[in-house]
């Protein structure tokens, strides 16, 4: 009996914790959840695109090494792909969130494409191709920044 009394608060705490976690994991998505997911994805995309831009500019100025630039681009590409996957995994719940999806979805896809182009240009070793691909990053970063300003 003493042992049961001793452990009872722990059992109760675990059951409450389990119930809270269960509720949080299974509750249906609402506008706030969707906006949060969209903003997180846009932030990840913006961080990745902007960092890639700074890094590749530094490489064109001979300030970073090839492996460093490659690694940073790989990480940026993975981050944008992950952001897109996360965003695509949440379904819109109303007109407002549908509009949000229609706005952010194409921007994230552009980010994936532009980073892919940049990686290809880097691999080709042509500074001209790299500079061309780099020029496409700025507008995508601006679009992501605009989305964040509007919805964050």
């Amino acid at each position, binding site marked *: 009996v003493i042992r049961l009394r001793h452990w009872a608060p722990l059992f109760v705490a675990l059951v409450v914790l389990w119930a809270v976690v269960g509720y949080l994991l299974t509750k249906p998505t609402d506008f706030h959840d969707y906006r*949060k997911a969209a*903003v*997180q994805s846009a*932030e990840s995309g*913006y*961080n990745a695109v*902007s*960092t890639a831009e*700074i*890094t590749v500019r*530094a490489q064109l*100025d*001979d*300030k*970073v*090494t*090839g*492996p*460093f630039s*490659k*690694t*940073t681009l*790989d*990480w940026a590409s993975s*981050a944008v792909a992950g952001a897109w996957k996360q965003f695509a995994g949440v379904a819109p719940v109303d007109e407002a969130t549908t509009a949000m999806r229609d706005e952010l979805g194409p921007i994230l896809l552009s980010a994936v494409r532009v980073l892919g182009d940049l990686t290809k240009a880097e691999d080709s070793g042509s500074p001209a191709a790299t500079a061309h691909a780099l020029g496409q990053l700025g507008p995508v970063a601006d679009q992501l*920044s605009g989305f964040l300003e509007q919805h*964050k």
Partner: protein
Amino acid sequence: VKKLLGLTLGIISAIGGFVDIGDLVANSQAGSRFGIRHAWVMVVGVLAICVYAEMCGRVVAISGRPVFDLVRERLGPRVALVNLTASYLVTLVTLGAEIGGVALSIELLSGTTYLLWLPAVALVLWLLLWRVKFGVLENLFGVAGLALIIFLVAVFRLHANWSELAGQARHISPPSGENWPNYWFLAVSIFASAMTPYEVFFFSSGGVEERWTAKDLGQSRANVFIGFPLGGVLALAIMVTSALIFYPAQISVDTLGQTALPTALAFGRIGLGLAILGFFAATFGAALETGLSAGYTVAQYFGWTWGKYVKPRQAARFHTVLLVSVLLGFAALLTTIDPVQLTEYMLMLSAVALPLTYLPILVVANDRRYLGDRTNGRLANALGTVVMVVVLAAAIAAIPLMVMTGMGGY
């Protein structure tokens, strides 16, 4: 001259060894999102670790025994077991994060994915823990970690706007676009990075490895009161460089490559190379320290022979714990969890476990049976109590902040 050299080497190792993966991640993230509005947290964190590391050094120098050996004796095996369990788990996660940090540093140099480097890093780490002498382990990576001074120099090269930085440092509040929970989440992360539990396990047990006596109290205090604050300055420099490059562009840092980027913009390839060398040394040195700390805590609790001052054959169980801990840290990374993300979790877990690590130190440092007339004075107790209040606040706030912010995400 030999003593002076030893003292200097000790301080240099303390400076270079202060920064680890937790400091690299937490400070660069905070700098990118909040400027240097968290600078005060680093100051509090350094003060806190100095207060408790001094106590640990004094306990070791006077009693000749590591603090956690005394904790078991003073608080009993049950309380000490809770302490051991929490400390070991946090140290293990820290070890995994440090191994990941080493592999990421190599990836930044080589361009080859860090996952391929993990087995080699774990193997070399274990071999060094097994074969190399304590003094070499302690000093080699601590001195190499001084390469991180490049961040301090970069602050000047990047033409910092000092009045703007001072303005940020004075504002203990989030900027527009950020919120209080995220501000406090990073505050707890930075505080935990300065006070990561393994630091006191290593410092305390290292004192025994080096056979400190009351005569070595001066060296112990010099390491703590000169080395740690200067190490804190390096961590602060990482925050400032991040604030200079990323904060104005509103780019959040979430990779180790981003942390290094400001040094490249300031000094080109040489700056970048030094930063990555610093990352490598800081994380490898910390991996060695966390590996040893994992062995120290377990061996000291069970009363086994431990340490690098005896041959591995004489401390077989201690070395088995080292090997198993390295394997577990390595296994955690094989799940492909991002080492930076693992570091973020490690910092929050550390924050939760801080009271379990630091409260027993305060108790033992006040026990005359171990310290005679060298127990804590009024100042040490007053500072220790204030720090303990902060530690408790950080421990209580850590989990709610994790949940509220989704790990500081939004």
